């Protein structure tokens, strides 16, 4: 088995796959190590063969398991995870709120995406928005400003501009949109598209979404079709044929037909099929990295049997999602405190490693539309979005520091099990809690609830920048070990008061959209994750941010670890601010950008 490669890439999702794609197509030998399995689409094992993914609600959040990790606030509680999410008793994340010791430590599924070839792009809703121009320069665009809901005046203390602007990333956004396979519309977006329009044509929206569009337009918010990483036409770059993707088994499901443009079907599979030197080893977990001089000389991993194995690459790219990437650097540092530990500045005073962990400020509003009912099961994840709340006017008039995107959710709660499982939920650890806790949902009560809820619910969500804070961080949790006897990741985070102010403003806009677009409604509620520190939205960023100042950043502007010559980190952990939109497309675009730096190095 080959042990020497030009590049070893750890993680097959949005951060790793674009680099594997580019380097292998440039003739460089590439190994991708992926902890999770390689689940096949239909026909992948031969014409007529079945997929390992199923349209099966029990795959989405499965049967009950019980947290057995000792000494946690939620030891003994139930959890319900997807078949490609980790087993929380084998690989828990531990959460603590740094400002309220009553919250934690507890085991959480928050902060994971998916452990499977394709990573989070297998399960995501596929919303593929670009960040706004302002999102790249939130320090400079806020200089001297006073913000609402910032009693200590510290909201902007740790905000840093990205080392490049929107215009520098724009060609790579275009490249990602073309190669990944995304449908949507440019018309109505607030971002410029000088490189051209590579969207596939969106398919007809679900009729319920018309209420969202009408609400946005009534309030003067220009609406556009939400860009979704789902192909609607034949996609030449990946060799995929169009099909019928509107089947509701979208968000939190792997797609058996491969129409959802996860990184396996869009980038890795075609590269392997076309004979480029890309090798994928699924079911292989990297345990640590070994330093030789100023380079990572060895990548230690366990093969599918659990046997220790070693490979090396001229370049090593870590892209196993932000929490796990930071954890891998820290675990490697503990194996070699004087070598790699020093090089990544582990546990050094003033070290930025692990700090400025980010997710999004998010929330929204939801109603049941009175007197109307729709078949929500014929849908993708979202139909309409607006950039109204990303404009400078909006941000300044509300005394906010940054903006965000607003879009409707179409497929949420469209299937019966999910409808009950997510009823009244507050976070991913709370599945079934609302339904089980409401004992009135039985007999006639359950039928009355169905009458109200089935096919009538419409929600509007927002996704906005979260304030970066040094106390929001990733550490190793000393007393809990994973199934390889390694320390597990510890997520320590809470919101800044200005996040609360921003989320209040955004949630109110979502409420206004629904009231304008669906005036006859039974109001279910609006709000945000403010006050619920554990929430992460599956959007995992920061912890190894990049920058132009070595003192303040873990990575240089090319995403290389400052003091290690050949080590790069390219999942969401590089981001100094989280952007006002779902992060996946930006992670992909940045990886295409980094690949341009890497090619001349090999």
């Amino acid at each position, binding site marked *: 088995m080959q042990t020497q490669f030009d590049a070893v890439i750890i993680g097959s999702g949005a951060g790793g796959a674009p680099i594997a794609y580019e380097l292998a197509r440039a003739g460089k030998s590439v190994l991708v190590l992926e902890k999770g399995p390689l689940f096949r689409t*239909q026909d992948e094992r031969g014409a007529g063969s079945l997929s390992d993914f199923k349209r099966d609600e029990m795959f989405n959040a499965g049967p009950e398991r019980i947290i057995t990790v000792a000494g946690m606030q939620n030891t003994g509680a139930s959890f319900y995870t997807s078949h490609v999410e980790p087993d929380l008793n084998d690989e828990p994340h531990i959460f603590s709120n740094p400002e309220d010791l009553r919250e934690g430590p507890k085991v959480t599924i928050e902060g994971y995406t998916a452990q499977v070839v394709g990573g989070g792009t297998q399960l995501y809703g596929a919303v593929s928005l670009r960040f706004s121009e302002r999102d790249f320069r939130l320090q400079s665009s806020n200089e001297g400003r006073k913000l609402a809901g910032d009693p200590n005046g510290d909201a902007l203390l740790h905000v840093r501009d990205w080392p490049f602007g929107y215009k520098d990333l724009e060609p790579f956004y275009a490249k990602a949109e073309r190669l990944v396979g995304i449908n949507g519309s440019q018309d109505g977006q607030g971002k410029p598209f000088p490189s051209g329009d590579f969207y596939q044509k969106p398919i007809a929206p679900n009729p319920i979404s018309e209420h969202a569009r009408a609400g946005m337009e009534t309030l003067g918010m220009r609406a556009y079709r939400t860009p979704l990483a789902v192909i609607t036409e034949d996609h030449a770059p990946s060799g995929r044929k169009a099909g019928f993707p509107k089947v509701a088994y979208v968000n939190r499901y792997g797609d058996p037909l491969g129409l959802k443009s996860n990184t396996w079907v869009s980038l890795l599979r075609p590269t392997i099929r076309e004979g480029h030197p890309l090798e994928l080893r699924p079911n292989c977990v990297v345990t640590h990295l070994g330093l030789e001089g100023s380079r990572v000389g060895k990548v230690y991993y366990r093969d*599918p049997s659990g046997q220790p194995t070693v490979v090396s690459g001229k370049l090593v790219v870590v892209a196993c999602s932000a929490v796990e990437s930071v954890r891998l650097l820290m675990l490697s540092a503990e194996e070699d405190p004087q070598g790699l530990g020093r090089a990544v500045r582990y546990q050094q005073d003033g070290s930025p490693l692990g700090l400025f962990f980010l997710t999004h400020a998010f929330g929204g509003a939801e109603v049941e539309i009175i007197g*109307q009912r729709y078949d929500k099961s014929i849908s993708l994840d979202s139909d309409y979005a607006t950039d109204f709340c990303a404009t400078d006017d909006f941000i300044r008039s509300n005394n906010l520091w940054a903006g965000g995107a607003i879009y409707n959710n179409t497929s949420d709660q469209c299937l019966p099990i999910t409808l009950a499982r997510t009823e009244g939920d507050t976070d991913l650890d709370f599945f079934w809690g609302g339904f089980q806790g409401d004992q009135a949902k039985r007999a006639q009560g359950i039928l009355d609830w169905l009458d109200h809820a089935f096919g009538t619910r419409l929600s509007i969500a927002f996704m906005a920048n979260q304030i970066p804070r040094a106390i929001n961080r990733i550490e190793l949790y000393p007393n809990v070990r994973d199934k390889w006897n390694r320390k597990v990741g510890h997520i320590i985070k809470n919101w800044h008061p200005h996040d609360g102010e921003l989320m209040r403003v955004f949630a109110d806009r979502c409420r206004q959209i629904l009231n304008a677009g669906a005036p006859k409604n039974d109001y279910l509620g609006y709000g945000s994750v403010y006050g619920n520190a554990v929430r992460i939205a599956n959007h995992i960023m920061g912890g190894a941010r990049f920058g132009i100042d070595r003192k303040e950043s873990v990575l240089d502007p090319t995403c290389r670890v400052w003091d290690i010559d050949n080590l790069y980190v390219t999942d969401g952990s590089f981001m100094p601010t989280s952007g006002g939109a779902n992060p996946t497309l930006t992670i992909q675009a940045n990886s295409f950008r980094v690949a341009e730096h890497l090619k001349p190095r090999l």
Partner: protein
Amino acid sequence: MADVVDKPADYVLNHCTKYLARDNQDTRHSFFTTYDGQSRGRISECWRFPIVDAHDGQEADASEFNDVTFIYVRDRQQPAARLVELVTTAAALHDPIPLSAVSDTVYWSATLKIPRARRYRYKFVVDGNLTVDPINPQTQTLASGDVWSSFFTWAYNAPINLERWEMALLDRLTRHILPFRGKEARNFISRGINAGNVGHLFRLDVSAGVANYIDNILAREEHHQLYAYKTCLEMLRNVLLRRHPDRDPASLEVEDYVALYDQMASFKDAQGNQALLNDGWDLKRYGNPAAFLWLLRRHAWTGAFSHPKYGGNPGGMAWGFLAATYHTTDDNPPQTAFNWQQAIEPPLGTSTEYRG
């Protein structure tokens, strides 16, 4: 005689590594002490083995079969076994089927094509020694006392762990939690929706097969809840027998069950809890009647609306109920508000692309 199916190595590894590969030997996966003292308490989701999957074949009747992949794992620290075989009632017991080592890994596997809705016994023969499967927790004990490993295929519909009286009581308990509306539901069922999918329409009645689903998952996915069902069903039967000494508890009126739910739900209310205790619910055996009602309600819902392969929702009956009950308001004439069939594989659904 079951056909042997050739599965590629990556299929086996993709379904094994997450659950089986590890260094740590703590008993982390023994919920409510279910697997304490057993090696399977150290691995994740032992119930997934053997792997029961859709039969991946082109035959016209492929949907009537499962591919069942048996996995044997050798200890990484021990020398490799020379020969691992499978004996099973799904094939000829006198004719062992060899497992193959999966490339250069610790896993051995064999896959058989087996009809759906069946239950069989098996053992491994490792270098000539008969052994039960150290992973799969399901067993059957013969009259002779001989213990075999056991598995069942999709939509299995005979009792596994629950007795007939337990199934009858469970059927009543869940039926009134999720009562497909009186007259409308009966009409729907009498029309024989999905009559083409009658293969698994056992014990359907008006209960959407929920009790059957629960019996199935208590053998596999949620085996840790078997104690709760065994204990609480017995106590509930005793409560009902005390209240109605001359009647079969499963034949009581709806009102009797509604009263029972109310007493379970309001158990924490200081005023509401006495009736259940007075009539025999023993808090030392199961401390929170409301928690059992939560469990029943979650299982009633998932049993009714999960894919029929899990043992409930026969022929998509509960999906069909939603489809027949709810209609769109923007279409003229109104269309169903739940066209579930278009997404689901034939013959259950009508998708022209997805094959299950």
